């Protein structure tokens, strides 16, 4: 599936919820299903700066697609990164670079998009895209 299709799917899922509580409960569930990073990659180098909780992300190229794994010590943060990874993992670097992230707004997590927000959603998106740029350069 393309990134846009996955994003629409996520938006559809979140539209079923009436209130924030259900959205957060779902996000916590998603956090529990996050494809976890191998402990070997849980290094300081892989920590995303700008988060109040710790977030580690690892990326590797399999064939022409980028596979992300991650972890966090906070469960809501894990849920947010799980949503991002579901949209961006197993995609071509070029598509990741070009993807827009408007869907975060549509699923009612707009407040997390503020650059001053301590969870660093913006930093996470930036980091995923940076990985994509790095691997795209490698492919070229």
């Amino acid at each position, binding site marked *: 599936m393309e990134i846009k299709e996955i994003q629409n799917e996520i938006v559809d899922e979140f539209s079923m919820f009436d209130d924030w509580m259900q959205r957060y*409960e779902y996000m916590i569930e998603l956090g529990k299903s996050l494809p976890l990073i191998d402990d070997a990659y849980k290094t300081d180098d892989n920590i995303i700066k700008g988060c109040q*909780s710790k977030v580690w992300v690892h990326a590797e190229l399999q064939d022409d697609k980028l596979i992300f794994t991650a972890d966090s010590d906070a469960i809501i943060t894990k849920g947010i990164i799980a949503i991002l990874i579901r949209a961006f993992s197993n995609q071509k670097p070029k598509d990741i670079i070009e993807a827009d992230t408007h869907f975060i707004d549509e699923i009612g997590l707009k407040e997390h998009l503020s650059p001053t927000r*301590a969870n660093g959603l913006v930093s996470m998106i930036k980091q995923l895209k940076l990985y994509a740029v790095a691997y795209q350069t490698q492919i070229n």
Partner: protein
Amino acid sequence: MLDINKIREDFPILKRKVNGQPLVYLDNAATSQTPKQVIDVIVDYYENYNANIHRGVHALSQEATDKYEQARIKIQKHFNAAKTHEIIFTSGTTHSINLVANGFSSILEKGDEVLVSAMEHHSNIVPWQMLCKRTGAVLKVIPMNQEGELLMDVYNELLSQKTKLVFCNHISNALGTINPIKEIIKKAHSVGAAVLIDGAQAAPHIVADVQALDVDFYTCSAHKVCGPTGVGMLYGKEEWLKKLPPYQGGGEMIAEVTFEKTTYADLPHKFEAGTPNICGGIAFGAALDYMNSIGFDEIAKYEHELLLYATQELLKIDGLKIYGTAKNKTSVISFNIDGIHPYDIGTILDKLGIAVRTGHHCAQPIMDFYKIPGTVRASFSFYNTKEEIDTLVSGVERARKMLV
């Protein structure tokens, strides 16, 4: 007894809603809310006598100067300083500490020692580290126990003829511990060391009498005592303030300037370069008036009740642990729940309209001491109620159920 409902009427912000819920503001240790009596003073300043001070011959300038200097006297009286010019207006506690640290650059020598407590805010650590780097002095730490109390016997051992400065907060922002500053000051003086007490967290709860304490420097910020942000004060004994060189150069702090030489103004202006936060200074005075009209004894008594009640109720929650259990503490509760990150709890509480602080509270060494990433911190003020504590407790319980 305080009439809390009447007091709450003074704070317009307490009526607002957050995320559709009535605001429960429990982040008072970060900043206090502003009563309309202080807001009115701010509005009055800009509507009626906004002008630059100490310079103009015109009426507005004179009026603003008078009000600003009256505020200085209010602050002097509040802290019982011997002289008005021992009160320096600053932008806040951080500025005050940097001013003193900078001044000691020319006094400290290589091998001198400075002592700092283990429970300091970063703003009372970093300026001293920078000072030590500049001068070659050595920074030593007064350790604390698991309850969050300073080990006074170790402090005694650390003190020596080499000790030139001791820094300590009056009350810890992360743990709420009230430190035995009178004893700390007395012992430091017995070896000839000067003492700076960071009163940022103490000012909203306790009135420090700087003469009775015999403290060399005491600082606080207006925004923790119902005043505006961006203004605070440094108290310094006259002999020290005369000894320290100016911190920043500019207008206001000079007596005479030629390109060859500048002579500095007398105290307090020597340390007040540039146009100050005039409105902020005046509002700072009004904020102290407001708090004194309520009465610090009554405030302390009521906040202690809130602390006991909140402690008792929070501890009923499964897996909840409180950090900072000193015998002598103010209305600050830092806590975690087993297996849950403080950030997650804070996020859920925010959704419920409850404002708390999460994270390391600018006191990473304390978090390292307890080997935790941070805590959730609820801090109570005299305008908070037991009902709000009930809302907090049920919110934390709800968060716990969602997050475990």
